[in-house]
């Protein structure tokens, strides 16, 4: 057991454990997950990240119940009120109000919904597309691989934000367009990692064995190869959520993403920009919220990487 622990997870999940039983019921899988957890638990920053992410998800889900005010409620008599601890502030608006008199805290709470939802949805779609593309590309090779790889190379030639900004400019702002503009290039990351993994796994004995037993290509891909590349996909996906949240905020900041009055943190930073000299809090708090969220997800993702798949370290 001692020796097994030091092995990376991938080695643990090798097929001689899967031959007789479904991996979900067999000995292999639960043991490996327990090992992953044991490894993860030792990593204090990652634990902190995980807790913060959980809290943020809780806040986003419970927004209507915990927000003190309606985030869209305009109040001309309460414009530009400072945070509670500053002279002129009140605990009714703990973080103050913006140029329309909307409660900043409530908008921050609702803003978490936009950031987390966009991050999760974009990465979910992109990873699914990427994993399928990577599997096909790596497993079949030949002209399919060539075509997919050319597309990947072309998309990689565009700096991320440049392509997203141009797409948003052409399609016009809005939530659905934002998702499209981000998924457009995002899937490439997962596709490349999965393809490399498939190439590494493809010639293993258990894949050969499955083929010898007459399993179809699809079956081999999804039953035998996919479970073995999933760990990398999960790690990559987690880290990419942080990146996508940053991109969403950047686009919204430029006015090309989520449109007001939907409270997006990026839009909120932009709202406060013109008032930065006097009412610094309007831009500062949403920026901090982005920083904390992205930081927490990065810590969680890197903890997962170290626990699940140490080879992905740069």
């Amino acid at each position, binding site marked *: 057991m001692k020796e097994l622990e030091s092995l990376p997870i991938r080695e643990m999940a090798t097929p001689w454990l899967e031959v007789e039983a479904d991996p979900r019921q067999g000995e292999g899988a639960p043991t490996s997950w327990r090992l992953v957890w044991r490894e993860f638990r030792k990593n204090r920053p990652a634990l902190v990240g995980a807790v913060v992410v959980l809290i943020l998800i809780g806040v986003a889900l419970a927004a209507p119940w915990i927000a003190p005010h309606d985030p869209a409620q305009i109040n001309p008599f309460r414009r530009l009120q400072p945070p509670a601890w500053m002279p002129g502030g009140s605990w009714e608006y703990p973080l103050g109000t913006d140029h329309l008199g909307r409660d900043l805290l409530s908008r921050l709470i609702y803003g978490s919904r936009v950031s987390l939802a966009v991050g999760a949805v974009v990465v979910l779609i992109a990873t699914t597309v990427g994993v399928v593309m990577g599997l096909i590309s790596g497993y079949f090779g030949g002209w399919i691989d060539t075509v997919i790889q050319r597309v990947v190379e072309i998309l990689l030639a565009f700096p991320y934000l440049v392509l997203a900004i141009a797409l948003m400019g*052409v399609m016009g702002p809005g939530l659905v367009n934002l998702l499209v503009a981000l998924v457009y290039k995002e899937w490439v990351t997962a596709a490349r990692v999965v393809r490399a993994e498939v190439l590494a796994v493809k010639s293993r004995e258990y894949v050969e064995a499955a083929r010898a037993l007459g399993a179809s290509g699809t079956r081999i891909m999804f039953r035998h190869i996919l479970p073995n590349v999933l760990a990398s996909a999960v790690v990559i996906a987690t880290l990419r959520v942080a990146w996508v949240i940053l991109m969403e905020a950047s686009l919204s900041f430029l006015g090309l993403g989520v449109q007001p009055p939907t409270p997006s943190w990026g839009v909120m930073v932009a709202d406060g920009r013109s008032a930065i000299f006097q009412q610094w809090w309007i*831009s500062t708090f949403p920026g901090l919220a982005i920083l904390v969220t992205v930081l927490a997800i990065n810590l969680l993702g890197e903890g997962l990487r170290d626990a699940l798949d140490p080879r992905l370290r740069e």
Partner: protein
Amino acid sequence: MRRLLQTVPVVLGVTLLVFTLIHLTPGDPVEAMMAGQGSVTQEQMDQLRRELGLDLPLWRQYLRFLAGLARGDLGHSFYYRGAPVGRLIADRLPATIELTVAAMVISVVIALPAGVLAAVRRNRLADRVGSVGAMLGVSLPDFWLGLVLILLFSVSLGWLPIAGRITYGMEPPPVTGLYLVDSLLAGDWAAFGDALRHLVLPAVTLGTAMAALTMRITRSSMLEVIRQEYITYARAKGLSEWAVVVRHGLRNALIPTVTVVSLNAGTLLGGNMIVETIFGWPGLGRLVVDSIYVRDYPVVQAAVFIYALTYILMNLVADWLYTWLNPRVTL
């Protein structure tokens, strides 16, 4: 050379994507051009459409676009009354180059020593501080960092200017378009200092994420190198610690660093748009953002193409640097 040939299909693909991008645009470009010009007859619009080749089938338009690119003709702006896009971009390019190079210099100057130090003093205080800093650096939204820096250094402390490239009227005579270089050529130290003071905040904002990435990679590749036998051998020879770390360690650790840095250069190019917008920096990034607001698609199209081309070139340079640093590899 072979590597250069391999990029040809990619560049072609890039042109195709850029071309289709603009033809996804809803609305008629001719109407966009004529907007706000009073009454325009149908004949005039048809005439303009013919002049611009917009009546041709798509594939011919694409060929025209390619032929134009080959001649260095990037099309004509809608917004600036038909001004050649190439001219508009050329005017803005020096500002962007100056900013990007400054950001790269700052990030490398901070990241390399910090990365080496973190590796040499692994798990000690310096390493811990470094890794926290790097983690913050990659998680900071650059548009917000820029605002906070302005708030701190320009508004509260009043040390640095808030926006722009140089104080109005101090522009050095244009030679290269890079104010730092031009002011030195003109021997105008006041202009040099002024341009430098304007450059600091945008360059730091742009360079932060890059510095964080570079530092982490330098650290991990340095850790990899330090374990090698030739380092033990260099120590055993009685070389000074400095020589061991820098001459034998760093040089080899740079190999992966250079690759990863150039792969992430795209982040720098994208960041340009944000940073230039915040600091009122009259570069290419701001031209793109402004052009999107006024729906000046030929400018957007050409600028996106230039960005992609730059990125491809940077990767080529990285490959070349890689073989230069690591003569064992041939491409």
